[in-house]
């Protein structure tokens, strides 16, 4: 799939934002006043910024408000509804924390649950797609949630949980890569099933339908070289997991180091998310060459 910056930024930032808001919702860290303002500001900035980035992916954003209507069937619609619900639910709790010195715990908990539910719906937008076998797997929501909670913990300064969560997510990510590499083949999609011509013999494209490109090819026929991908996997793992873990475990965890670990993690998430799209092979590519 085409690794469009808008969707990479969207999923990476909104995941971190909602992860952070979830931690804040359960009172970790237990902050109030200016400190609370700073963290909530960051949480909202990441979540809303991510959501805003997603709007750049829309070719006709005028109709974006209609995306709240189809929550019965559409994961994207559910995400929109839940994102707004989460942001609304978190707001009074944040207000209480910042301005009133505290807020009812159940209110924070509701906000936290809605925040994580939002991340889950985001993940399901991708997980639901049978057309992209690499995504169509339980590890996809696990990873999205892992990145959100782990990254959120990192930003929220929850060193110990962050360490455990990053380690777990890292393992899940490596598992997802290893398993994901075989999912397309395991799903049984081939040029032969795509065309129904397998009963005659081996199928290969002789001539593409049009000399030039088209929307499908631009959107779905992105491919990344194996060596290139492997390099990026290593870099992504190092940045998103290993370096933050080293910092968490090996440094006196202060604001500077925390900032560095978050920055490392964020860049790593961008790399990994780029790979998430770039390595995903859509079955429609079977109708085209290569």
């Amino acid at each position, binding site marked *: *799939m085409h690794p469009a910056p808008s969707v990479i930024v969207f999923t990476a930032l909104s995941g971190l934002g909602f992860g952070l808001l979830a931690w804040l919702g359960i009172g970790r860290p237990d902050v109030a006043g200016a400190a609370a303002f700073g963290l909530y500001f960051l949480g909202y900035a990441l979540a809303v910024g991510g959501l805003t980035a997603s709007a750049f*992916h*829309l*070719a*006709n*954003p*005028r*109709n*974006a408000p*209609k*995306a709240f*209507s*189809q929550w*019965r*069937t*559409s*994961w*994207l*619609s559910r995400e*929109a509804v839940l994102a707004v619900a989460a942001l609304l639910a978190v707001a009074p709790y944040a207000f209480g924390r910042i301005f009133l010195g505290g807020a009812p715990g159940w209110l924070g908990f509701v906000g936290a649950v809605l925040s994580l539910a939002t991340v889950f719906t985001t993940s399901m*937008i991708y997980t*639901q*797609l*049978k*057309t*992209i076998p690499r995504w169509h797997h339980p590890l996809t929501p696990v990873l999205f949630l892992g990145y959100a909670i782990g990254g959120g913990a990192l930003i929220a300064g929850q060193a110990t949980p962050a360490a455990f969560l990053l380690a777990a997510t890292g393992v899940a990510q490596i598992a997802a890569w290893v398993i994901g590499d075989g999912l397309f083949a395991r*799903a*049984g*999609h081939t*040029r032969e*099933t*795509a*065309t*129904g*011509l397998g*009963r*005659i*013999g*081996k*199928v*290969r*494209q*002789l*001539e*593409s*339908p*049009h000399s*030039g*490109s*088209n*929307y*499908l090819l*631009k*959107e*779905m026929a992105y491919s990344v070289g194996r060596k290139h991908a492997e390099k990026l996997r290593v870099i992504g793992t190092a940045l998103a997991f290993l370096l933050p873990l080293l910092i968490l475990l090996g440094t006196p965890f202060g604001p500077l180091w925390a900032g560095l670990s978050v920055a490392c993690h964020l860049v790593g998430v961008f790399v990994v998310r780029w790979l998430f799209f770039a390595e995903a092979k*859509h*079955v*429609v590519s079977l*109708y*085209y060459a290569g």
Partner: protein
Amino acid sequence: MTSLPEKTGKKLGLVIDLDTCVGCHACVVNCKEWNTSNYGAPLSDMDAYGSNPVGTFLNRVHSYEVTPDTGLAQTVHFPKSCLHCEDAPCVTVCPTGASYKRVEDGIVLVNEDDCMGCGLCAWACPYGARELDQLAGVMKKCTLCVDRIYNDNIPEEDRVPACVRTCPAGARHFGDFADPDSPVSRLTAERGGMELMPEQGTKPVNRYLPPRQKDASLSEIKALGGDIEEPKGLLAWLDKALEAI
């Protein structure tokens, strides 16, 4: 409404005969010209006279080469457009309600007034049947010429999709698959009409008739084996044959 109907009144769709399609692209272009000035936004062409012309098409013809284990390689021309699946994943993923499958006839459509151009439906489609128009920013797809097939302003015999109306070889057939006696149902039954990528579970309505067995002469020995060789034999045969006229 992006929930799929339990059952549709009709199951309108196409039978595409791969044994007959010569790959002329007539359906591709007639589809383009009908649909660019009818249902919804025009089908734009970017960089139309430049180095990378890319336009929106609702139907495209692929060309494949199929090589059997023994025998000669074959060329198969393969038109592809929306298959109007019974279990259309493109519909259920739509967040705005722009995509829908009609209860009355099963046609999958996009209401462009509701489309926000997120492209998720195109991702959900295994067949590459949806293209986002780069100028209008809305999702375009085969409408099965919904604005022709019920159109009182055109003669009854022309109330078929433009691609079917124009196909010179008659390789495209339009009809109701819900009716087991319809010509499309019968063709499907007689010629083993196949689903594309059945493992996706989309239950496509459109069916493809596979190419018939080719190149029988490779496996079948057949020769006239006459013995008229010398002039004498020729004359004798001629004499006898002419007598019989």
